[in-house]
């Protein structure tokens, strides 16, 4: 059964259904979207079931010629990098839909956009063909743009346009890189291809590799967003409607580090080694800078947005430690950040619906009025801080472990980000929920059933991952070890090993990833 295709396009089918069903009431539109998203979650869990943890290569691969004359194919597959991101996407989308119960205008269109967004995100995590990846990666801008601009608050249009242009400008360099790689496959293999399994066998000159690395890296760094390309993020996160913030923070940002892991390390190993230190420094600057700026915010949504800059810095740091611990930690941390930030935005959304403000100065004392929302926010904050027993702890720990292995100074500075994180998150909790409550907030409604339905599963998963992360790590590790071995083999090559070794390792690696697939169904 084509699991992955079904997984990717089921939400699109739901979107088409919504588009055609002109008479749907708001409740019906919500129900359809939620059911489709839940069905997709079931499919995603099916993919986990079909996934073989021992295999480091691409699994459940499906390939169909798309434009055969240029070697473009519809090629999807899953491995340890993408597996949990896919599950995260399928898990967060229903939560995002539940967060939009308060939206009253053009509900059908909003739900359709959410579903098409899910298709695009899943597609970009699963595509193994560079141009196919780009199609999904770029197409997801449109629904997100409409969502921020159409349903956001305040300076929504400014935020939406800024988001779109920043990301599009970044991916313009990616597009040039992709076209160039295709041109190289024509030159070297006689037949053009966008298949990354073919492209990683290209032998590229060092300078060329570096340029391509930079092109790809800019595109992904904007998405992450890495300091200093992050300025679109606070605007977009703050002005987006709750569902938009959740999808943006929990899912869209992951496309950046995922792209670096999947493409930068794999296709340009030499250049990755060259640039790793510089990127590590940028990541650490991002960690500290994001945390400091977050401390100064009075808008709680903006605070969480800057905390994302800080947390995503950890992810990038982990990837470019080029150690197995760091990379595994980074992948796990992507999932963790998705869960905790998703829940934070959900809690903020609940508050905003009731108080109509995001300014922490105007809140306060809400713990007595809405104790359950306060509890939700507290759990999400503690998870975000990295309290042991909750999910973030393991990921951050692994990243820091890896960074000490690579460069202890980077690791040491990065740790301050954890400390600062505790400060701003607990401040935020204190300002929002403790102290005297303003008169006008008396009698606010506490958490309601559909919100409970969204919050409980997220907290359950957080606890589970905090206590028993091995379920996730067992499936991540083979892939990260594969890519780290691959990159470090090149590093040794640079250190003066015989030139032929690289080709040899390349072949071994290609075989290693190709061989197990023949056994899989």
């Amino acid at each position, binding site marked *: 059964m084509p699991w992955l295709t079904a997984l990717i396009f089921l939400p699109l089918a739901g979107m088409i259904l919504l588009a055609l069903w002109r008479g749907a009431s708001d409740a019906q539109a919500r129900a359809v979207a939620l059911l489709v998203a839940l069905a997709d979650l079931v499919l995603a869990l099916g993919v986990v079931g079909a996934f073989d943890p021992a295999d480091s290569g691409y699994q459940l691969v499906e390939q169909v010629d798309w434009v055969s004359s240029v070697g473009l194919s519809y090629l999807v597959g899953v491995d340890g990098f993408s597996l949990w991101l896919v599950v995260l996407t399928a898990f967060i989308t229903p939560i995002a839909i539940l967060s939009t119960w308060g939206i009253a205008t053009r509900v059908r269109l909003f739900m359709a956009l959410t579903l098409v967004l899910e298709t695009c995100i899943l597609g970009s995590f699963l595509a193994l063909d560079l141009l196919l990846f780009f199609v999904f990666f770029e197409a997801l801008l*449109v629904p997100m743009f409409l969502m921020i601009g159409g349903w956001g608050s305040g300076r929504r249009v400014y935020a939406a346009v800024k988001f779109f242009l920043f990301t599009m400008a970044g991916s313009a360099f990616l597009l040039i890189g992709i076209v160039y790689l295709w041109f190289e496959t024509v030159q070297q293999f006689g037949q053009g291809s966008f298949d990354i399994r073919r492209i990683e066998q290209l032998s590229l000159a060092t300078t060329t590799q570096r340029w391509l690395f930079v092109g790809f890296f800019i595109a992904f760094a904007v998405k992450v967003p890495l300091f200093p390309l992050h300025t679109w993020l606070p605007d977009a996160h703050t002005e987006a409607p709750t569902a938009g913030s959740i999808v943006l923070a929990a899912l869209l940002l992951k496309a950046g580090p995922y792209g670096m892991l999947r493409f930068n390390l794999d296709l340009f190993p030499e250049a990755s080694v060259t640039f790793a230190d510089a990127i590590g420094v940028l990541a650490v600057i991002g960690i500290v800078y994001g945390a400091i700026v977050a401390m100064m915010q009075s808008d709680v949504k903006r605070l969480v947005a800057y905390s994302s800059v800080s947390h995503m810095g950890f992810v990038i740091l982990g990837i470019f430690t080029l150690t197995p611990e760091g990379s595994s930690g980074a992948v796990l941390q992507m999932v963790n950040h998705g869960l905790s930030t998703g829940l934070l935005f959900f809690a903020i959304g609940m508050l905003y619906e009731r108080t109509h403000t995001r300014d922490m100065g105007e809140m306060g004392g809400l713990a007595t009025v809405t104790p359950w929302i306060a509890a939700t926010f507290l759990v999400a904050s503690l998870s975000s801080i990295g309290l042991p027993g909750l999910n973030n702890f393991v990921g951050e720990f692994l990243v820091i472990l890896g960074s000490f292995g690579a460069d202890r100074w980077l690791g040491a500075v990065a740790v301050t980000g954890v400390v600062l994180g505790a400060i701003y998150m607990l401040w935020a909790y204190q300002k929002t929920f403790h102290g005297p409550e303003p008169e006008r907030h008396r009698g606010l409604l506490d958490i309601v059933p559909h919100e409970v339905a969204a919050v409980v599963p997220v907290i359950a998963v957080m606890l589970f991952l905090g206590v028993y992360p091995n379920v996730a790590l067992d499936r991540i590790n083979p892939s990260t070890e594969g890519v780290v071995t691959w990159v470090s083999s090149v590093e040794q090559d640079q250190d003066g090993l015989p030139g032929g070794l690289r080709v040899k390792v390349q072949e071994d690696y290609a075989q290693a990833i190709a061989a197990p697939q023949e056994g899989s169904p």
Partner: protein
Amino acid sequence: MIDTPPVELAPIAPELILAGAAIIVLLGGVVFPRLDRLVWLFVSLAGVAGAAAASILLWDRDGSLTALAGSVAVDRFGVVVRLIVLGVAAIGLLYGHHYLERSGEARAEFYPLVLFAAVGMTLFSISADLIVAFLALEILSLSLYVLTGLSQRLGSVEGAMKYFLLGAFSSAFFLFGVAMAYGATGSTSLSAISNALAGETGSVALALTAVGLLAVGFAFKVSAVPFHMWTPDVYQGAPTAVTAFMSAGTKVAAFAALMRVFNVAFQPLTWDWQPIVWALAAISVVVGSVLAIAQTDIKRMLAYSSISHAGFVLVGLTAAGEVGISAALFYLVAYAVAVIGAFGVVMLVSGRGEQRTSLSAYAGLAARSPLAAGLLTVFMLSLAGIPPTAGFIAKVSVFSAAVEAGAWPLVLIGVLASVIAAFFYLRVIVLMYMRDPEGATEPDPSLLPRLTVAVPALAVLVLGLFPGLVIGFLDSAAVLRW
């Protein structure tokens, strides 16, 4: 006895059918002035369909490379370009019929003028002789001058006047170029020019002058900077239905002729004309994209956008030969469907007498007419080159052609210009979906034009999702025979 060349009419059957239909409608309009104009629409559409069928029959035609004593080429390139032009003409006729009926300016001359312009366009693309090319150019230009001035509005008349004056000027350049080419090589036939230049029997200095002058003539017709000045005024002034037809059709035909002349006649001088194309491309993408941002009228904005798109086609054409031609053909198809669709929506929104063509008329359109807003969004995304639309695949294909030609800096300029351009396409979407309407005016609710606009929208999506459907045909059409 005089030796007459063999007369083979099959290769120009599409043009004959079109011209025949045009003459029938022209005379019919005089003889039966009271007949419902719907009849003339159907006769014209039948002519277009017949011409399309005749072109398709030419697809597998072997035999001589050229027909009518070397004046027209017989190849698949010609077939593909004809089909694009005929598709554009059919949509243009449907638009125009509706537009003129509604504005009360209906005249029977409209149909034959569109058909004659289409004859000029298709003939331009297949001409294998510079004199024939000039004739075709004049046929299409004269028809378009009149079509531009078809409405009684001042803008329409002004646009026609500008178009005529500057167009006549550029025709002179073109003709001068033809003369120079003749002076250099002693022939106006493309293949003879090519042979003379390859054999170094012609004067290179004169030939280079010819290349320059012809490039000016073509650059004017495709509206490449710095020969683009007429475009905004004419696009804005002409009745929107005519603008739709003209913006798509002229660009396709002029580029087709440019590809043929430069890749056949001046093929030996490729190294000399490539820098010209390079420069025109670079200036056009930048100037078109930047100036479009400042526009407040959607027709003018689309005019500047068409200038930048001319630049993108030229980016693809920096790769000489088949690679560039096939990429440029795909780009032209993608551009033609998107722009004719976009002008279709503009026609629906602008109302009688073109009262509402300013961008502010699009505020809140999504609430008033979700269909029109949705269609225009598709066209804007395609023009901006966002996947999964045809415009994206087109952008990738011209960029990969340019990469193959080693035109790195040009690709970089093109990519950055496309980011700039995304801004003003997005602005239309922002207006439609994120602003409140300013007036309560409804867009034209008629069914026929809406159905017509849906056709290019479908084409944009199908070409974006399954480009393989046409790429095979375009690749085999990219081989010019001479």
